[in-house]
């Protein structure tokens, strides 16, 4: 039952990924300028060779010319004709995607593929993401629980104020303010040099926490409200009546139920982390995927933009999938 549910969810990923790819592909091909545009004009022969090497001489959507040519040459095998029909840039890209091949990065003049750049730039991004997630969960959930248990106390007001600020003020604004504050007031430089990002350095703390603030606030608000809902339930009273310690009542009976609601929103929260990460990386100069994306945007490196967009979109879709599965796992009523 659960397996069927998971499989159905995974299956639903396919049309989403295809649709996202198609939209991205279409938009990127609407963009003016070619992939090999440089300040100095490149020789026509070189351009032709480059186009041929990367299949950019093929038609964009479907290759009707090839089909017509083969038909006239007397070929009638429908599978081969279909193969010729699909020999276009779009279907080549889709097929590349299946093999996790995102094509050459135009900015590197085809010397490095998009996936190898992404792979190289992935670790810093992952580290910032891990710091952000850990911070958001480890601070957000306890703050929400405390706020609910001591409703209308000063802890409650402090956590609500922080949460409201964190939810409404975007993380890149907070990031900028944190940088100015740290450097002007404390003389700390939160923007580090490239070599300082190796391994698990303290450099990751500031961008990670800033990135996690929004999610933390969201979790605080949500944990608080779902705890308040649970606090007056009969089964909590029963648990108290049968003499459980307060700690056990809170952890076993209240938290466990309150967290179901929290886990459902982790999907959108992770999505926010993912899309927020490239702004934060740019602000803090983290040498990760996100900053690479922003650089690619400025340089109009279309294949890089496309590849990164798809990676991010896929990641968000997977996060949503994970949440759905967790939710189905935790709450049997959902599995229908």
């Amino acid at each position: 039952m659960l397996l069927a549910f998971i499989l159905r969810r995974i299956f639903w990923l396919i049309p989403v990924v295809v649709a996202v790819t198609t939209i991205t592909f279409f938009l990127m091909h609407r963009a003016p300028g070619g992939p090999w545009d440089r300040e100095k004009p490149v020789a026509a022969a070189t351009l032709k060779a480059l186009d041929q090497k990367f299949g950019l001489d093929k038609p964009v959507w479907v290759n009707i010319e090839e089909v017509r040519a083969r038909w006239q040459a007397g070929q009638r095998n429908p599978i081969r004709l279909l193969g010729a029909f699909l020999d276009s840039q779009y279907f080549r890209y889709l097929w590349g995607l299946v093999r996790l091949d995102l094509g050459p990065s135009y900015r590197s003049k085809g010397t490095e593929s998009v996936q190898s750049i992404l792979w190289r730039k992935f670790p810093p991004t992952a580290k910032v993401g891990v710091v952000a997630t850990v911070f958001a969960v480890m601070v957000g959930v306890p703050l929400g629980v405390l706020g609910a248990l001591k409703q209308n106390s000063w802890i409650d007001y402090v956590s609500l104020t922080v949460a409201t600020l964190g939810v409404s003020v975007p993380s890149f604004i907070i990031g900028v303010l944190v940088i100015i504050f740290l450097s002007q007031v404390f003389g700390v430089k939160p923007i580090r040099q490239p070599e300082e990002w190796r391994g698990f350095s303290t450099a990751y703390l500031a961008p990670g926490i800033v990135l996690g603030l929004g999610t933390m606030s969201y979790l605080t608000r949500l944990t608080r409200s779902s705890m308040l809902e649970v606090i007056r339930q009969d089964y909590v009273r029963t648990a108290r009546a049968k003499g459980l310690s307060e700690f056990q009542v809170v952890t076993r009976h209240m938290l466990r139920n309150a967290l179901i609601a929290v886990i459902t929103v982790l999907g959108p929260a992770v999505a926010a982390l993912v899309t927020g990460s490239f702004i934060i990386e740019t602000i803090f100069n983290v040498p990760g995927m996100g900053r690479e994306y922003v650089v690619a945007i400025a340089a109009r490196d279309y294949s890089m933009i496309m590849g990164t967009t798809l990676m991010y979109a896929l990641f968000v879709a997977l996060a949503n999938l994970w949440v759905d599965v967790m939710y189905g796992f935790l709450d049997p009523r959902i599995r229908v």
Partner: protein
Amino acid sequence: MAATAATTPVLDRDLLLQRPPRSLWSDAWRRFRKNRLALLGLAYIAFLAVIALAAPLVAPHNPVQSDVQHAGVVRQAAWIRDPNPMRTGSWEYPLGTDSVGRDVFSRLVYGTRVSLVVGFVPMIFTVSIGMLIGLLAGYAGGRVDNLLMRFTDVVYAFPDLLLFIIMQVAFQDAWIGKLLNGLVLLFITLSLVSWVTVARLVRGEVLAVKQKEFVEAARAIGASSFSLLFRHIVPNTLGPIIVVAAYIVPGAIISEAILSYLGIGIRPSVRLDAPFPTSWGSMILEGSKAWESQPWMLIAPTLAVASITLAFTFVGDGLRDAFDPRQAER
């Protein structure tokens, strides 16, 4: 017969309304008024709207013209003292000047225009599109509903900001990206995704309201589909839509700031009479290039964005509590 006639005035007296009934709107307004933060947010937004409209009167200098000869290359914020007379702060330039000698305060004032316009125009677009699709899906049902909802699912799965970015990259250098300093393209881009939320909401409301007795009664007395939709169903969905719309506005403002910060939002204008010369996001981009030597260039637009999003969140929370009291009790 006589008995009925005798009891009617008594019944009338007992059941007569003691005061005129309160409409949904006056009821909501009554609850909204009690929320001090929401009122504060509303007042701040009204204040910004006045500033935006009266920008030429409020701004002490032209936001595009460089004052290098008079102001020096970098004039600091007014309260910062500097031994160099060409750098020390003066109230002529309350927030200092930027790297090319333009008055930061005047640019900030003009930036208000972009933020408000970019918040409200896409909101109107998204609410209209979302309502149309939601009504169509909810009212027609069946295959139309299925098709439209699958479509919204796909759009929903696409991370907003990524779609905005590739839209801007693809069309910014085309003719459409140059209309009104790129504002037209921004309107389109920012309307692409949020309608999904509205559409889902409206569809849900329509499905719920469709089953109610008053709709059945209206249909029984021969109301047309059109009047059924717009006299009976739409008014009942307005409350939640207003709440969602209030949250769409700050979302669009933030997205514009991010896009402009990435250099793919609004195009900073060099024309002296441009109505929308710059945006807060562009100012953050300019400021972040010189943040160590001229931090005020960065602080001013950052605080402006932070305060406007806070104001809109307060108003949104207030509206949510006003229109959905059940939610507010939590």
